[in-house]
Each structure stands twice: as C-alpha cells, then as structure tokens.
C-alpha cells in the first residue's frame, strides 16, 4: 500500500492543519499545508497510498473537518492510531477517510515501514517486518454509513425517501 509516517500522542488539529490556512476549504490547497507545524517534510515526502500511524487521542482540538480533508487530499490512504479524538473520529467517517484503532499495530510499525491494510477484514500488515495485526472492527451503524459513501450520500438518500 504505502509507507508509514509515525507520530506520537495527542496530534492536534492545529498540528494537522494550522488555522492560518483555514481561509479555504479546497482540499488540494489544504493538503499543501498538511502536518506543516508538526513535520515540515511531510508534504514533500507523502505519496498516494501512504499511511499515518500515531498514538493516543489523534485529531484532538478543533472541530475543523479541514483536518481529515487535508490528510485525505494529501494522498494518505488511512490513519492508524491507538485512539482518536471524538470529533475527528466522526468527521473521518462522515467524509470517507478510513481510520483504524489498533494499539498493537502502532507499537509494531516504525517510520518508513511498508504497510498494507485490508479494510474488509481490518488486518494490518507490516510488510517490512512481516508482522500482521487485527484492528477493531467498525460498529455496524458506521459500516452502513461508509457503505452508502459517507454522510453526504446517506443524507441524500434519506432526503429522497422523505420526499424533500
């Protein structure tokens, strides 16, 4: 799939996309500043299919959806963390950025390792070390939303059914 960018605990939304760049909601322009204050090299090195691996409470802070949007538009395929802050968690589902909670994988992946994720099974493989990890499955309600293509599509269908 791609290589891992590894970060610590409490990566906050100001670190993911600083407020000074919130003068646009264009995903590609947000992506140009993704992780800027935390890891100035991220934007230059990230390639489509890469993954972010982080510790506890990833995405804490502001409600800005710009944070998962910037990560998704940067080419990151998935974020694996020990735990997520709640608004970031909900926003990621709503906008269709796959996120997985898996403390074992976080402990077992180093910066630059090649990582493969199977979203169907939740199996995370560190291709560099050959180790595999099982992420917690998504709750059924969220699976349903992901299946309908995120919250926007889910609501679209609901509005059509309700005849609005």
């Amino acid at each position: 799939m791609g290589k891992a960018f590894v970060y610590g605990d409490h990566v906050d939304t100001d670190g993911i996309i600083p407020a000074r760049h919130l003068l646009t909601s264009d995903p590609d322009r947000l992506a140009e500043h993704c992780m800027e204050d935390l890891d100035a090299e991220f934007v230059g090195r990230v390639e489509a299919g890469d993954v972010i691996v982080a510790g506890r409470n990833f995405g804490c802070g502001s409600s800005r959806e710009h944070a998962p949007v910037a990560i998704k538009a940067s080419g990151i395929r998935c974020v694996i963390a020990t735990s997520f802050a709640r608004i970031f968690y909900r926003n990621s589902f709503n906008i269709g950025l796959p996120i997985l909670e898996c403390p074992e994988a976080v402990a077992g992946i180093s910066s630059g390792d090649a990582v493969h994720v199977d979203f169907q099974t939740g199996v995370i493989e560190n291709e560099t070390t050959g180790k595999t990890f099982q992420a917690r499955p998504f709750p059924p309600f969220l699976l349903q939303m992901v299946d309908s293509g995120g919250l926007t599509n889910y609501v679209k269908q609901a509005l059509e059914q309700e005849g609005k």
Partner: protein
Amino acid sequence: MGMTMTQKILAAHAGRANVEAGDYIEADLDVVLGNDITTPSAIREYRGMGASRVYDPHKVVLIPDHFAPNKDIQAAAQCAEVRGFVKEQGISNYYEVGRMGIEHVLLPEQGLVTAGDVIIGADSHTCTYGALGAFSTGVGSTDMAAGMARGKAWFRVPPAIRFELTGKPGPMVGGKDIILSIIGKIGVEGAQYKSMEFTGPGIANLSMDDRFTIANMAIEAGAKNGIFPVDDVTKAYVEAHPCVNPDMKKEFRAFEADPDACYEQTIEIDLSEIDLTVAFPHLPENTHPVGEAKGIAVDQVVIGSCTNGRIEDMEAAAKILKGRRVAPSVRLIVIPGTQQVYLECIKQGWAQIFVEAGGVFSTPTCGPCLGGHTGVLGDGEVALSTTNRNFVGRMGHPGSKIYLAGPAVAAATAVVGTIADPREL
C-alpha cells in the same frame, strides 16, 4: 436502568423512552450552528446532499466570528458566502459584524439556546451550552450540513463521568481554575467520548459565567459534552436573557438524571481546595498552581475568547488593572465576547481602565485565540492567555508558547510582566 441527564435529553429527542450508553440514535435538533470557517464547507456538502431548503430557517444560527471583521480578502470571501446562504435560505439567526460576538458567548446571551435543547455546532466549543442544562456538542461541517438539511444528527449515546462538586471557591478562583484543575487531574483524553456531568452542592456557588467556562472546556478533556443541572441560577439567567427571535419558540425544559443513573466513575471535587491554576505549554492538562508559574516572562497577554470573554471576566480583569499600568515589555489585548459585553465594559468604566492601563480594547472576535489576527504570536514569543488551547502554533508561530489561565491571573501578569498571582498585588 436509570439514565443520566444527557441520556434523558437524547432519548426525548430521539422519540424513545429509553436509551443506553453505546446505542446509535438519530436525534431531533433544536439548533444547528456554524461560523465563517466551517459554514462554507457545510454549504458545499449541503448542496451535495441535494438539499434545497433548510429544515427550519429559524433554527439555523450562523455567526461570522473567527476571521471577522474580515481579516483579509479570503476571509471576506468566506463571510460573503455565509451571508449569501443566509439570504437564499431566509435564515433568521444571522449576526452581522457590529451586532455579532463570539458564537458561544452570543447564543446564550441572545436566548437562542436553552435548557433541554439538543444543539450541534460546527465548532468544537459548542459544548459550552451544557452549562444551561442542554445537550450540546461540536461536530464537523458535514454533520452541520446534514443537520441543516434534515434537522437530525446521529449520535452514539455516551457513558458519563460524574463530577461531584462541594465547597466554595476561594477569592479570585473562578470557572477557569476549576476546569483547568479538572483537566490536569483527568488528562486531555480523560473523558474521551463521554459526558462530563457536574452535580453536587458546590454548583450553587458557581455563577452562570463560571459554568459556561467549565462546560466550554469539556472538549479539552476529550468529552462529547459537559452538562450542569438546572437550578435557580439557570432559571434566573434564562429569564434575564429571553430569546430575541420570536420565531424560534424556545421551550425551557429541565431534565434530571435518574437517581439510579449509571456513571462510569464519580470524581469528587472540593471547590475550596482549588488554587488559581495555569496550564503550561503545549497541552491544557499541564496544569500547575499559579505559584509554580510565577516569574515566567511573557510578551503578550490575551483576555477574551469563548472561554473567558464574558462580563464577569471583564470585571475580574478590570478590578486588577484599575489604577495600574501594563508592564513595558508586555502587550495586553482585551477582547470582550459580544457587543453587549463590550457595551457593559464601556458603561462600567472598564474600557477606560483597559485603555488607561495601556492595553488594546478590541471589538468582539475570535482573533488571536486561533492565531487568526489581532495579536498573532511570532517565533519564540510567549503568551499568557485566557483562551482554551495551548497547542503548538495555536496562536501563531510554531515556535511560540502559550500559558492558559483565568482573567485575574492574566491581568496580574500583564501588570507584572511575568506570570503573577493577583492576590499578591
């Protein structure tokens, strides 16, 4: 099994007799809130949903407060987009520059939120309104769009931690010291995904402004919401701040937790033991009593924000600054939360005190709190601020540092030039 206060409000808004922690529900919304940063994305998603009319033009509240008054051309474009949407949809709760304020100070003051409401806002500090006995939580722009389109939001019913408050806070100790010391105790993810329910006899000793400050920072402990029971203080506040929009038809409803409600944990807090508290960089959980922070030099002091931009905060700062001067090495920036708070500062003579002391006294805005404008920090600069986040780069350059405290400590620090204990001035 009994329900917590939060669970009761959610059940009532989901049309259910009972909910349990972990249930997924869809709840009816009394208010959907957005600001100049989050609304433009929400408008795009709203269009993507195929929606054409908002579910109720009197229940959507849009406030340009973050980069407004427009800080630059892009900010002007974002605010204009919000304004255009307001016109198109006939939204009655829009506050233009000159009438606006920081959303979380403004909504309760204008009576747009009340006890028993379910409120979502595309701003993380929407949890502030829990102080009134409402369920109120921050969401992203897509949730806001869905809320505007259907008047509903999905929630996972949260479990709760109960905070049993006793005693009376000491002199100058306020809501900010209480919530900072709680976050210091439980950590920035101590209430992750959960409700923080405040109960106990100590609550009677807290003003509404103290409660707003405490509920406001529930998010800094990772909580979904913070909530206070409805008492005489709440009722008096709501009576004094009736809803300015007759089309909203607010209904004040007091919900109480069941006696056998299930809490994951009960934490006892004796308010009389809480000291003036300062959070060190770069997390709100890095708290210390002010005594341990004394002597740290600062370049800038900010008094304001949705956490501490209310009347009592301005009064606390003015009392200390009266007849004193800001230290030559310090820039003091005072930003009242709303036009009403601003006007009160003028009427009470506090505005004059701030200006005579050598401080900036600005129109309401979020401004420096998010490193937006009106006091952005440069590399290596240190601020003491009454805002709510001290993350790396939050108020400007990633090389700057932020200490968080209440208004009394902030005012004393501005005078001394290093972090100071206002009781010793």
